[in-house]
């Protein structure tokens, strides 16, 4: 009798052990970031072609952004301001947006494009933005099919509570572009990053 009494216990131990392995494995998978976003596409992403015109006078609204260096290709939605006066952000982490209160890309002044570094689940469209370097090219397609080509001049990171409003949004005498995303430390209690990464670029004429 005693020998038989051990069998359910052993079977239970086997079941519990296997369940623990399954739970541990699932936990391990869910808490890792399998970060292999679009970056590998950089090598195959084609440089956009089209009439690249830096012309005086009105330019059409932007519709798409391509950054071959970090494998980004995205349509551009329109962004305004929130009720508190902050810049709206795209509702999805996989698309970037142009601030309609800023100049159009290719017009005089700094055009503003913002995109997420990540969503709740993983990398967003601007996950690799901070890896851009001076000299990298940015391509903005406009509604009339024309292309504005920009060259990165600087990549900077600022604490959000010391955001340099004038250097980012202030008037410039030439045609510029700013790309904005988050960076630095993520504060889980605020559910927010503590810094912003800003890429400065000028149009190539």
């Amino acid at each position, binding site marked *: 009798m005693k020998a038989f009494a051990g069998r359910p216990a052993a079977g239970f*131990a086997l079941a519990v052990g296997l369940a*623990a392995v399954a739970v*541990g494995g699932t*936990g391990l998978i869910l808490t890792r970031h399998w970060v292999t976003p679009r970056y590998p596409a950089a090598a195959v992403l084609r440089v956009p072609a089209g009439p690249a015109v830096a012309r005086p006078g009105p330019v059409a609204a932007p519709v798409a952004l391509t950054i071959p260096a970090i494998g980004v290709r995205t349509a551009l939605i329109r962004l305004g301001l929130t009720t508190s006066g902050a810049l709206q952000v795209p509702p999805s982490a996989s698309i970037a947006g142009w601030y309609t209160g800023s100049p159009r890309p290719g017009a005089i002044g700094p055009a503003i494009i913002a995109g997420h570094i990540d969503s709740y689940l993983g990398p967003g469209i*601007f996950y690799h933005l901070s890896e851009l370097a001076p000299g990298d090219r940015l391509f903005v397609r406009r509604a009339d099919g024309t292309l504005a080509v920009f060259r990165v001049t600087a990549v900077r990171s600022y604490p959000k509570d010391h955001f340099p409003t004038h250097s980012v949004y202030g008037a410039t005498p030439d045609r510029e572009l700013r790309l904005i995303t988050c960076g630095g430390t993520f504060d889980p209690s605020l559910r927010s990053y503590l810094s912003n990464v800003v890429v400065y670029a000028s149009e190539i004429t």
Partner: protein
Amino acid sequence: MEFPRHIRRVIVVAVASVSLAIVPVAASASAAAVSTGWIRLAHLSPNTPAVDVYLYSFGDSSAQLVLRHVGYGDVSPYEAVTAGEYTVAMRAAGASAATKPVLSASVDVVAGDAFTVAGLGPESALRLQVLRDDLRTPPDKALVRVIQASLHEHLVTVSYGGTVLAASLAFGSVSSYQPVSAPAAPVRIEAVGVDVASSVTLAAGSVHTLVVLDKANGVTVDNLLDAAGSAVAPAGGVGTGLGGAAPRGPASPLPWVAVIVAGALIALAGRLRLRRLPRPRT
């Protein structure tokens, strides 16, 4: 604490190389964004024939930029240049670059600032004036100034909507920038026997120069866009991240690995015990 000499030497070298590695990175990052300024060139002397305008980096005898056959009323686009001393020289159109310039002026281009170098006044008293162009607009306003380059009308009063931008501005002079808030309004040029109106748009966040110019019969106004920015600058930083890809230091994989290992051991023990125990007969 006393270290033996060779260990002290190693520490010094290590500290030095770390600081050497850090300092240039920080320096180059801040230099990249702020080391350029802008310059543009203008011919605003009504009775002076066309000129060739040369831009030299100070001390360099070969021109960085040459604008040929610049006539009255011509204003070049801004040229982004490395901050530093520059010389602007004017020669008669077509004259050799080796000839002595008719006029020259030096400009100290400050990083992040914009400058207009304009030929102003009558031909007999032509001068090159260096104007500093403002790039900081007050919130929700445009900035505008007036250059009086009309020889027909020696004194003009220029207003934008109800705002007087320049009262009795003399030929060859420049008003200071003024903030205005109406996005579009008529510009009026008043002088003796003249009252010209035309509509211009001065959007919030932008900087303009209105140039009063002679035309065949009377005067006209040229609206130059000096600079533009966001009409309303968004407040504060931008919330472009939700943390799904944020590095998480403390959330190490070890607890999960421990659970897996423990589970595997328990399962193995159970399996071994099951093997050893005889199967019940029914």
